[in-house]
């Protein structure tokens, strides 16, 4: 019998309740929520929020293939420190996650690390090449629920239609990285006045919006369900809002960086700000925030994309796109997202758990009987990022020098504290 843990004195936020209470955990479950609970180990949570653990729909853990940037273990630790208890692992590994063997490997490495549930996503097309379908039924039988070619959008409309039809029969969700590739050749940053000055090829908003529009219409004729990854433009939000009004089975996410950073940062010539889709305008940020508030956007997902230092020391055009996100997401969203704390929990835990179809164990109300996947965070604590002290193997965070608000204090994964007082426990 393992020791019981009691989280003392936090404010427990559930869908329909909010109260100061202790939370008792025995073995891997919450056994009691109430006043003056006693256990073998007490974790102080005064001034803190207690919620279900966060679920990231969009993490690049880089293993197998690019262990120099991140491993499943280091990415899991970064996730735990960010309050996450589940990470959906993106499939652009090497080899890509288009076979049961690779899916099983990723899941096993996640179990070995034992810090979060690592939920492998599958490829839509073989090798993410956009030419023929990956064995989606085999992968679905191996437990994969979310499929994407992330990093690439599926360019061929006929193939995407087939993929949606096939997915509907399997009861799985396809997630699209929306980018019409012909319109973004060589692109480094948003097409805007700033890219005109810098002489850099622009990544126009329309390249995202055209594919959002196409896929909404494909969902309409196929009846499949679809998730839009990292939406970044005003008109993408408008398109998704209208599609939801029509009752289509569509969900969408935005990243913390698209809510907090703008295109002008590229004028520093620092490739840490290069990301795909690119940082956009302040008007786009306003539209994304409006989408969070009115429910058009369902989830905040990190698009955590570690890169080794030498890769981010290349020129703007040669450096790979992407930035770290797992350890800073909460602090960025609370500082700059413009949402209530309850909305933040919905966007970072309740809704993404449902989209990833892992809501049997994640994103649950904190009540007796649930699997103890919990996050305890101080919503007021301000802090600044020291890239050298991040748990991630890479240091490409864009938030150096910015003040974040809100920090994870404890994370409980399957009844075990993976983080106590901001320190990873293994």
């Amino acid at each position: 019998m393992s020791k019981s843990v009691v989280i003392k004195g936090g404010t427990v936020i559930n869908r329909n309740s909010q109260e100061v209470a202790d939370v008792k955990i025995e073995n891997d479950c919450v056994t009691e929520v109430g006043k003056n609970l006693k256990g073998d180990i007490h974790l102080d949570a005064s001034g803190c929020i207690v919620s279900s653990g966060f679920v990231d729909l969009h993490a690049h853990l880089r293993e197998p293939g690019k262990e120099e940037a991140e491993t499943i273990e280091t990415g899991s630790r970064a996730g735990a420190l960010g309050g996450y208890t589940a990470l959906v692992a993106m499939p652009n590994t090497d080899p890509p996650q288009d076979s049961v063997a690779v899916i099983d490997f990723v899941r096993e490495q996640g179990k070995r690390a034992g810090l979060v549930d690592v939920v492998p996503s599958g490829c839509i097309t073989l090798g993410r090449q956009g030419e023929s379908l990956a064995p989606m039924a085999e992968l679905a039988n191996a437990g994969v629920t979310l499929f994407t070619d992330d990093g690439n959008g599926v360019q061929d409309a006929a193939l995407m239609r087939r993929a949606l039809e096939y997915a509907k029969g399997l009861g799985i969700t396809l997630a699209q990285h929306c980018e019409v590739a012909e319109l973004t050749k060589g692109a480094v940053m948003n097409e805007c006045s700033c890219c005109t000055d810098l002489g850099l090829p622009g990544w126009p908003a329309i390249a995202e919006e055209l594919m959002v529009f196409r896929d909404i219409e494909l969902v309409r004729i196929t009846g499949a369900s679809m998730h839009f990854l990292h939406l970044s433009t005003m008109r993408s939000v408008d398109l998704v809002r209208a599609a939801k009004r029509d009752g289509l089975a569509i969900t969408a996410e935005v990243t913390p960086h698209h809510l907090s950073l703008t295109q002008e940062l590229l004028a520093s010539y620092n490739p840490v700000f290069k990301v795909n889709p690119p940082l956009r305008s302040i008007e786009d940020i306003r539209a994304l925030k409006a989408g969070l508030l009115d429910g058009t956007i369902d989830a905040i997902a990190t698009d955590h994309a570690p890169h080794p230092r030498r890769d981010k020391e290349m020129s703007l055009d040669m450096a790979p796109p992407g930035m770290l996100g797992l350890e800073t997401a909460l602090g960025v969203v609370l500082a700059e997202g413009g949402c209530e704390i309850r909305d933040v929990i919905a966007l970072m835990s309740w809704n993404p758990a449902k989209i990833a179809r892992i809501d049997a164990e994640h994103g649950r109300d904190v009540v007796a009987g649930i699997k103890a996947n919990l996050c305890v965070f101080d919503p007021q604590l301000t802090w600044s990022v020291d890239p050298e002290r991040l748990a991630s193997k890479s240091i490409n965070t864009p938030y150096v020098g910015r003040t974040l608000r809100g920090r994870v204090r404890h994370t409980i994964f399957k009844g075990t504290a993976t983080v106590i007082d901001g320190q990873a426990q293994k």
Partner: protein
Amino acid sequence: MKHLRSIDELGLDGLTGLLQLTDHMAEINQRPVPKVPALRGRTIASLFFEDSTRTRLSFETAAKRLSADTMTFNVSTSSVNKGESLRDTVATITDMGVDAFVVRHKSVGIPWQISQWTSASIINAGDGAHQHPTQALVDCYTIREATHAQNFSGMKIAIVGDIKHSRVARSNIQAFTLLGASVVLVAPPTLLPPDVSHWPVSVSHKLDEIIDKVDVLYMLRLQSERMAQGHVPTLREYSEQYGLTHKRVLALKSDAIVMHPGPMNRGVEMQIDPSDVKNSLIHRQVANGVSVRMAVLFELLGSGSSLGGQA
């Protein structure tokens, strides 16, 4: 002044200061022995990751006339081809003791990135389609020399051609407008950046509509790969719409100046020989290149020592 990376960073005072200093350098270059000891003991490294004839040679000549030591980095025979990173390359050369890097690279922003990795001064000799500040200094000096104008107010300058991909255009737009000129960009919309509404310029898509109104006609080089990328259907069509022909030379004002940063594409943007134009300054642009770059090197590396005397 520590670096010369863009006209924007240089500002109007820096720009006019360098133009005045160039007069002194031009005087040195007139001497029987055009060499002074001003930068003796200083070392200048040329880092050219892209081909260049006139810029590289004029920097080297400028450095030698100021008695600086020069180091030339040849990309094709360097460790860059063994996979050495740019940061390591810069650190290695810095360790040998250099005072300035003259950098040309196909990628935007490299001079700013490098300046974080070395204490040496950085001179941007062209970064992607972004900036080429010494070319703009050369062009401003050349116009000033020909017109004896201290500033360019009231002057109308047309820049014709591939503005979108041109670092010369971006630097010259900043420099010409800082000095008070009104600038008109002449190009098909496909060779303009998607949005120039925030630039202090006007735009025309028809060369014939403006050619009789300009004081300076600045022709840009059209690279043949623009055709493959679909920016223009054919070179013949471009040449017909935007090239300098005999007919267009006749339409110019009698005292209008014609310029080109080189290298010229004869038969494309230049359908005539420059010598066919009465007021072509194309050879003066090359000649002034050395004096301007001497001024830049002296401004960044000189320690207040006199320019007089013989080496």
